[in-house]
């Protein structure tokens, strides 16, 4: 009896790829990349092409991709505007004058307008500080690959890949122990042009051993423009270095903001990261931090204020790769109308990372029946001698507290503002710097007064 040959499924039979549906935004990205970067041969070209390969293949991340489950970029991005052209100096200067986030706080500024570094508007000539524009370095043929793209995450991330593929300008910054603490270093990201554009900025900061610096990261833009901004920082914090980092995201009401901070921590270093979100139609602030040396501490904190149909995502990853480090994450959100807040916080404690202390807490105040929050804490613990905890609360304004305040003569709207400020104030005050705390509380108050209309 003849034996029939085993059934074989020829790979060739199936290798006609199914036609993949591309959204308009994905088509925009492919077109923009191929026009500008496909045949480029500057030092970053292979980095760009690698980063774009996944996006080209899989498209923008959507709700079935776990990391973007609650922030579906495929659905959120209808189109992707073209990359901004460099604005003229006068437009950038005007935009800078309009920011007003920090008032007259004493600080050095590194200014980016529409994603381009403006040395003319920056004050980078301080002792212990060196700043080199990324676009200028690339134009000069410098090899920047030893600095850009050095900090890797454990897995791919779409926002980071987008930035790597499309980064236009940025800066390479070094801060030495000669830096005089007491004066902040501000990175300002402005929108100067009146067109809807996209900006991709990549900045590397090396905080050298023993240096101590306060960094302000400010994002501002006009209402009514659907700008996209994608800003990535790669920060390496040296041994015994101390970094306080306060990000204020106050982009316009139609803006799309993706921000990523990659941090690696040296021995016995401190990093305090505070993210204050009160702008953008959609935003995602990511902080990915790795403890690479022992004895260090990171505090990641933040306040998110949302109303209308805004969507804001805070995504954290803290990787305890070595023993004896402490991390604390404390985030609060106040959400009104139909707005949606997302918190994803992951702590990884690797097998070697004994004596780890990791704590995560999120608290949300929902001001309306349609307000929404998604909380996703994740602990992945592979060591046994560790302390880790997480908690999340969600609630509304306590009516008994409201009545007590009103019974003392405080009108309802004012009482509500007082209680909301009390809720977020405790977290803001942990920043410790009185001048910064005062500015953030003032911004919160103004935001809440805007709220007053429908309270």
């Amino acid at each position, binding site marked *: 009896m003849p034996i029939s040959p085993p059934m074989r499924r020829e790979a060739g039979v199936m290798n006609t790829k199914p036609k993949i549906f591309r959204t308009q935004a994905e088509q925009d990205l492919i077109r923009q990349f191929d026009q500008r970067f496909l045949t480029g041969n500057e030092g970053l070209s292979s980095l760009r092409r690698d980063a774009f390969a996944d996006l080209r293949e899989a498209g923008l991340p959507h709700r079935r991709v776990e990391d973007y489950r609650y922030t579906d970029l495929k659905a959120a991005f209808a189109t992707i505007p073209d990359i901004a052209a460099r604005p003229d100096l006068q437009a950038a200067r005007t935009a800078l004058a309009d920011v007003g986030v920090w008032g007259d706080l004493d600080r050095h500024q590194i200014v980016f307008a529409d994603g381009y570094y403006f040395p003319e508007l920056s004050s980078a000539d301080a002792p212990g500080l060196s700043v080199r524009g990324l676009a200028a370095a690339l134009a000069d043929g410098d090899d920047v690959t030893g600095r850009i793209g050095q900090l890797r995450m454990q897995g791919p991330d779409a926002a980071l890949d987008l930035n790597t593929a499309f980064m236009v300008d940025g800066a390479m910054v070094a801060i030495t122990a000669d830096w005089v603490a007491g004066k902040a270093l501000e990175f300002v990201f402005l929108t100067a042009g009146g067109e809807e554009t996209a900006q991709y900025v990549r900045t590397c900061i090396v905080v050298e051993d023993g240096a101590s610096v306060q960094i302000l990261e400010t994002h501002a833009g006009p209402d009514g423009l659907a700008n996209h901004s994608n800003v990535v920082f790669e920060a390496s914090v040296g041994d015994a270095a101390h970094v306080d980092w306060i990000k204020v995201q106050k982009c316009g009401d139609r803006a799309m903001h993706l921000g990523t901070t990659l941090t690696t921590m040296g021995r016995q270093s401190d990093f305090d990261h505070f993210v204050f979100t009160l702008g953008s139609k959609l935003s995602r602030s990511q902080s990915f931090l790795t403890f690479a040396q022992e004895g260090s501490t990171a505090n990641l904190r933040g306040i998110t204020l949302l109303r209308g149909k805004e969507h804001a995502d805070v995504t954290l990853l803290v990787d305890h790769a070595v023993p004896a480090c402490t991390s604390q994450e404390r985030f609060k959100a106040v959400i009104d109308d139909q707005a949606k807040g997302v918190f994803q916080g992951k702590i990884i404690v690797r097998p070697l990372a004994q004596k780890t202390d990791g704590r995560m807490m999120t608290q949300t105040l929902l001001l309306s029946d349609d307000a929404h929050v998604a909380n996703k804490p994740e602990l992945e613990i592979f060591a046994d001698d560790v302390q880790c905890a997480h908690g999340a609360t969600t609630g509304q304004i306590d*009516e*008994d*507290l409201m*009545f*007590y*305040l*009103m*019974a*003392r*003569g*405080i*009108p*309802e709207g*004012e*009482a509500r503002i*007082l*209680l909301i*400020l*009390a*809720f977020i*104030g*405790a977290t803001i005050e942990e920043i410790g710097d009185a001048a910064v705390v005062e500015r953030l509380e003032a911004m919160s108050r103004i935001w809440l007064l805007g709220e007053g209309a429908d309270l």
Partner: protein
Amino acid sequence: MLEIKNLHVAVDGNEILRGIDLTVNAGEVHAIMGPNGSGKSTLSYVLSGKDDYEITEGEILFKGEDLLAMAPHERAAAGVFLAFQYPIEIPGVATMTFLKTALNAQRRQRGQAELATPDFIRLVREKAQTLHISQDMLKRPLNVGFSGGEKKRNEILQMALLEPALCVLDETDSGLDIDALRIVSDGVNALRGPERAMIVITHYQRLLDHIVPDVVHVLSKGRIVKTGDKSLALELEAKGYADFAADAA
């Protein structure tokens, strides 16, 4: 100053107050005594405007105006003050901030200029001193970590600062030791005057040794069953509430 006429109040459909009539004139101190569940606290909450109380019948006039039509903050600005039986803790709101916000909110509603910070601080310090309230307490979040006595003293401080026309004290003596009771009572007595009326709600006669009332009412099962002078309180202490409760049934 205050006229309560045939007041009926229900909570979740259960009638708690069943026809209260009470007139309090300026300069008078009225004590309302009664057992648990007689409706004493309900009366205080209805006067200050808490939600969840349904007025099924009757009216309350305050200085001739319809009190029930006013929101809680409007009642406060008009001069109604409730000293809470259980003062609320509010984390994150410093006591000083709260006091200033309350005083200036009332002044604004009355068309008066807001008090500047230095004037305000001077005023609070002066009032706080007589109530043995420390600067440290004023800096702390409102009532957070305060002892029972501190909370009650803080209520009286607010009363002294806001200078209301009608003070309603809801079981201000509960949770107080003898020393605290004397400090609180002295604070209340200092506020007695011809322009001010007080309603002192209490279980026990002992508070009335310190704050001597002009009129004593016995509340039972949602009605005032007996009214007399201060000797009525002594009679109650001796005989208990049971006899009076029988009258109300």
